[in-house]
Structure formats: structure tokens, C-alpha cells
């Protein structure tokens, strides 16, 4: 009896898991198959006839190709600025024991969702305009940084808290200056946290549409999230063959970044030191 029940429960579980898996896998499968299909379709099917013409068409669109580079600049730039400033800020906030720290961070996180949200677009545009940052990479990177920083600090502080102070104290007694100590001891030990925050920031910017759409003017600076609309018809419907090919190209850098970081450093979403 128990054996049968066991087998039955295994079958049921496997079936359920397959269903859930299919739900998530089918769109991915479409994304990997559709770009090679000569006929634009929403069905998941083996490309027939198989073709690379879609990619030829995409690469012929200089605006769209350039946009991928722009996306890299914006996402990469934001990633660097957010990770570095958030690390230093989280470290300082943790070690200096700022009163009401938690209230402060939660407040900032709340406000930050406004900063990158639709509601604040007009003031952000006016501010960027006043600072002469409209239609510049710097303006977009700064707007994103402002929005992502509180959450990044919040995530990183947990990693800093997990760092025993004796490491820093020992470095100081050894003769290391405060900067040296942070660079040699604190930063390497915070690397898993910095990786998490860095990738998270990269992905946030990579997929964002609204902020660059509002803050950037010239087509030469537009990121891929906006450029993908150049593969829509005049009537506003996507040309499936081209959008899917572009979307695949658009997805590759994030995938590569994730694989690289995971292979090199491993991913952890919590603090603490692996001794």
C-alpha cells in the first residue's frame, strides 16, 4: 500500500513540477526559437524554414545596434556607481551606528520607489533640465543611482553587519590606514554582497524604459529598451521575427553577466563570512 502511495505521490509531484516548469519555460523556449524562424508566429515551434535573416535585418538597423551599446553604458555605469557608493555608505552607516538607522533606510527605500516611479518624472525632468543633464548619460545614471541606492545600501548593510570587527581592528593594528583597510580587507570580504547589488542594479537599468525615455532626447543615446520599438510597424504592432531576434540579443548580456559572476564568485543573498 505504502509503496503504491509513494509512487503515486511521486508521479503527481513530477506532473505538477512539469506543469510549473512548462509555464516558465515556454516563453523562454519561444525566445530562443522564434528569432530563427522565417515566419513570425507566437507558437513555440521548430523554426521552419531555419534562417538567420532576422538577425541580418536587426544588425542592419544601426539605431538598434547602437542602442545595445547605450544600454551597456547606462546599466554598467549605474552598476559601478551604485555598487561603490552603496558599499561605502553601508559600511559607514553600519560602523558609525547612526541613530534611527532603520527608520532612515525604510523611509529612503519608500521614497526611492517614488524617485524611479512615474509620479516623480516631471520634477526629475525639471531638475535634470536645470542641471543641464537632459540628454546625457550622466543624467540618466544619476537618476537611476538615486532610485537604487537606498535598497542597495539596505542589502549591503546586512553583509557589513556579518563582518566581524576584529578583521578591521587587526588591519589597523597591523598598520593599515583606514582607506587601505577598507580596500584590502573590507571590500574583498563584502564582494559577494557587492556582486548581488551590482547585478541587481544592472538588471534594473537594463530593463528600464521610462527614465531614459524621458531624460534622453537624441536617438544616438537611446538604450535598447526604447530601440526595440523601432521593430514595430507604423500601426504599433510588433514585427515578431525582428522583435524576437532583437530581444534575444538584448537578453544575452544579462545572461552572460550572471553566468560569469556565478562561476567566478558564487551567489549569496545573505551576509556572513565563509572562513
Amino acid at each position, binding site marked *: 500500500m505504502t509503496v503504491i502511495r509513494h509512487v503515486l505521490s511521486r508521479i503527481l509531484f513530477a506532473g505538477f513540477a512539469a506543469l510549473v516548469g512548462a509555464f516558465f519555460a515556454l516563453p523562454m523556449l519561444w525566445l530562443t526559437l522564434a528569432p530563427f524562424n522565417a515566419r513570425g508566429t507566437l507558437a513555440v515551434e521548430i523554426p521552419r524554414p531555419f534562417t538567420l535573416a532576422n538577425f541580418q535585418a536587426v544588425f542592419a538597423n544601426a539605431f538598434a545596434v547602437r542602442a545595445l551599446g547605450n544600454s551597456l553604458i547606462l546599466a554598467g555605469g549605474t552598476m559601478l556607481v551604485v555598487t561603490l557608493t552603496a558599499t561605502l555608505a553601508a559600511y559607514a552607516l553600519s560602523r558609525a551606528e547612526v541613530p534611527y538607522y532603520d527608520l532612515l533606510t525604510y523611509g529612503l527605500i519608500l521614497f526611492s520607489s517614488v524617485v524611479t516611479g512615474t509620479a516623480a518624472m516631471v520634477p526629475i525632468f525639471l531638475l535634470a533640465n536645470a542641471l543641464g543633464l537632459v540628454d546625457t548619460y550622466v543624467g540618466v545614471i544619476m537618476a537611476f543611482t538615486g532610485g537604487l541606492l537606498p535598497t542597495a545600501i539596505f542589502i549591503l548593510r546586512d553583509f557589513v553587519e556579518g563582518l*566581524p570587527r*576584529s*578583521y578591521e*581592528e*587587526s*588591519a*589597523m*593594528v*597591523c*598598520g*593599515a*590606514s583606514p582607506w*587601505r583597510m577598507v580596500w*584590502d*580587507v573590507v571590500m*574583498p*570580504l563584502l*564582494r559577494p554582497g557587492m556582486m548581488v547589488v551590482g547585478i541587481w542594479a544592472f538588471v534594473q537599468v537594463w530593463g528600464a524604459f521610462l527614465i531614459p525615455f524621458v531624460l534622453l532626447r537624441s536617438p544616438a543615446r537611446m538604450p535598447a529598451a526604447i530601440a526595440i520599438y523601432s521593430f514595430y510597424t507604423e500601426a504599433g504592432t510588433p514585427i515578431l521575427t525582428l522583435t524576437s531576434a532583437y530581444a534575444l540579443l538584448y537578453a544575452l548580456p544579462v545572461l552572460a553577466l550572471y553566468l560569469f559572476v556565478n562561476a567566478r564568485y558564487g551567489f549569496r543573498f545573505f551576509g556572513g*563570512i*565563509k*572562513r
Partner: protein
Amino acid sequence: MARIRLEGVTKAFGTVVAVDAVTLDIEDGEFFALLGPSGCGKTTTLRLIAGLERPTRGRIFIGERDVTELPPQARDVAMVFQDYALYPHMTVLENIGYPLKVRRYAKPEIHRRVREVAEVLQIADLLDRRPGQLSGGQQQRAAVARALVYHPQAFLFDEPLSNLDAKLRLEARSFLKHLQKSLGITTVYVTHDQAEAMALADRIGVMDQGRLLQVGTPLEIYRRPRNTFVATFIGSPPMNLLSGRLHLAESALILTDGQALSVADRVEALRQAFREGERVWLGVRPEHLALAEGPGPTHLSARVYAVEPLGVETLVTVQVDEERLTLRLSVDEPPVLREQVWVRIPLERALFFRESGELAL
């Protein structure tokens, strides 16, 4: 190598006074142990010397230099932390060489000197490993090597043996003592383990509640503890204390249960030190107590409370009224539980403390 002096050093955290007006002079080349229960301020005192804390009041000197206002980087001391604080992302070689790296030594020089201390500490074959791949004892050696490599003015140890198991601890203890003696570097060693302090130190400073109660050689402190706190903190098992009232006219000490102990031998000295009828604490080390055949002027009637055979000796705890005495006996046939026995109090070796706890005689 240098002398370390603390002059009236006080450290307060808010309203809590962790270190209270400590004045201390540690000789050049001395092995000095700061001993006390947890929270007594010994680690804070060490951190004040290292520069990791700034004193609220008082001055600290290393050598002839007033280092009170100097950051840890400028004090030229080395510290071994309780958790060793070996950087997990560096190899043992990089860990040991780190103090030299921040001092901008050339790489070949760093390698040469790291190898040299690693030889001394017998960890030369572990230099390519990471701290996580070392055993507790090896980690401890690596931490000591990192302290040794830059020839600091002084070593500061914060309970470096407390993370080792009992067997390794004894081994590491004699190793540390040997090392310190052969290098002659001034060492301040913080511990809560009185046996460790006794075994290692040239002199011990006993601390409690932020104050330095007594400074002296291990034997001085063992033989003549300045007060009942030190008396009961040093020694394992600690000193026995009996409370009683002096009847100098009758040359007797009347214990709380009414038993009288003749103090005739020392009555002259007791007269000098105490008033008639004063309450006192009588202190006797367990090894000075002995069993007696029958009643006598310095014998106490007691009942056996516990018998702990340790091999070389047997610890026998007896109960006298409310109080317990521990005897350290090396007899073949120790008394049995609940037996009624006579304990001889050797008054010539006994210490007399005032009711407040201060040693008087």
C-alpha cells in the same frame, strides 16, 4: 621592545565605567597577564593600549612615547585576537605578510621574512593555504606569526587560547611562553583563566569591575591575595573562606556555627590588626588543610559533602555549618560521603581578611 605605562587610565562607555583609573607599569620584556572575570575591563584595557579605544581620562605610554592620542596604526604594537582575525580571502603567506605589505616592503623581502617566522612557528608548509583550511592550533600560530613578522614594540594577546581544545591549549601555552622568553618582547596577555595567567606570566594584574585590584608575581598573588576577591579568583579550587568573630581575650575565633578555633599562636599579631569582637574572614588554601584523627584546638568538626578523585590527589569538600571547605588530599583512602571528619586548620598558614574583604594579616 618597550615598557608600557598606564597613568590613571579611565574608559567610560556612556555611564558604564569599563576601566577605572588604572595605573600600571609593565617592564620591558615582561610577560604581563591581565586576569579577571568577563566584563571586568581587561579586554578594554588591552584595546586602550592597542589604540582601538580612546581613554576618557589618563595617559598611555609605550616606550618613552605618549601614545594616548595616536591611532592604532602609529603605535607599533601587534595584537592577536580571540578569533585570530585571519583574513579568509588571503593565503596564510599573504596574511602573515600583510603588516609588511602595508609598510611597503618589497615582495622578495616580505617572502623572506614570512618564511623566517613561519619556520620558527612550524607552519612553513602551510603558507599557500587559506585560513579556512587550517586547524585551530595552526590558525593560532598563523595569527602569532602575523604579529611577530614586523618586530613590534609589544605583543597584545586577547584570550588567544580560548578557542583551542584542552590538550592543544596546554601545548600552545608552553609554546607561547617559550617563544616570549626567547624573543623578549614585552607582552600583555588578557585571560579569564587563572591557571593560564599563573603559568605564563611574570606578573599578573587582577581586575574586577574596571579596577586593578592587585599586581604581583603569580606566587605573590597566590600566597598573599590582597582581598577575598583575588583570594577566591586565584587557585583551583580557590581559597577557602570561613567567616567568624574574634575573641582575642580567649585567643579564639568563633565560627558561625559556634565552633571555637584556637588562634593562640598568632594572637599577638591579631591584636595588632583587629579589634576585640571584630568579624573576620579566615582564608586557607585547600592544599594546607588536612584531616585529623580527633578533636583538637585547631580542629573543626565537619561532614563530607563530596569526594572527587583526580588521580594524583583527591578533592574532598566538607561542610561546616553553612560553609564548605575544600581539601586537596593525597591519601590512599579518602573519607566517604556524609562521614563525620575532623579538619585541621593550619593557622600559621592562614590569612585573615577584614569583613570588608581587605587582607589584614
